[in-house]
């Protein structure tokens, strides 16, 4: 139920993993690559991962969500390498008898993935590039340095 891949993600295939006749709800998150950063046009994104640890951490997040929300179906796929604009970089799919747990678990899983999984995203512009420090972080490309969590 965990996948780290250079291939394009197929949300339908990943979501299909969490369908069960005993479930009434499937909540899916698709992370897609945005075409701009503070008005600057992004041409493409490069995702780099520390593979062994990323897979381990993705599985940890999966297990955490299953334990915390009493779930059995949690699938996570993360893409690495070059990802074009508008393409899917992350899929989290949760199947659950009831929707509340599915929504909470899916949201928290994405938050945790962005906190703990050693994957890095570089935005490539016409005139340069920038390692994204962390999502929604006010970060000027000029002072492109590391930032503690």
């Amino acid at each position, binding site marked *: 139920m965990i996948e780290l891949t250079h291939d394009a993600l197929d949300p339908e295939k990943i979501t299909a993993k969490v369908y069960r006749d005993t479930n009434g709800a499937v909540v899916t998150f698709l*992370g897609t690559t945005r075409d701009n950063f503070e008005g600057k046009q992004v041409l493409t994104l490069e*995702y*780099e*991962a*520390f593979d*062994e*640890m*990323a897979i*381990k951490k993705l599985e940890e997040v999966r297990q955490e969500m299953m334990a915390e929300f009493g779930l059995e179906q949690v699938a996570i796929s*993360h893409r690495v390498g070059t990802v074009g604009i508008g393409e899917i*970089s*992350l899929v989290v799919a949760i199947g659950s008898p009831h929707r509340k747990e599915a929504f909470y678990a899916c949201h928290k899983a*994405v938050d945790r*993935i*962005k*906190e*703990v*999984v*050693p*994957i*890095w*995203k*570089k935005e490539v512009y016409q005139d340069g590039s920038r*390692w*994204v*420090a*962390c*999502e929604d972080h006010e970060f000027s490309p000029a002072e*492109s*340095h*590391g*930032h*503690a*969590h």
Partner: protein
Amino acid sequence: MELNVRLFALYRERAGANTISVAVNDGATVADLTAEVRRQLPNLAPPEVNIVVAVNADYAAPDVILKPGDDVCLIPPVSGG
């Protein structure tokens, strides 16, 4: 002891290398290692930024003691998703 320290993403680009060799005393901790890394590569991360270390593919606290052969990696701020 001499440790091979792997770098990723921003740190890899700043250092211009996938791996650096860092010499620390036997019994050195993760904190000792990052102090030594800062001496070798003062521009890797500004002083106010904590350099996060993974030992054997898991996050390691500053007081963890390093052993020869440990897989040591420096983890820049993550930005997956």
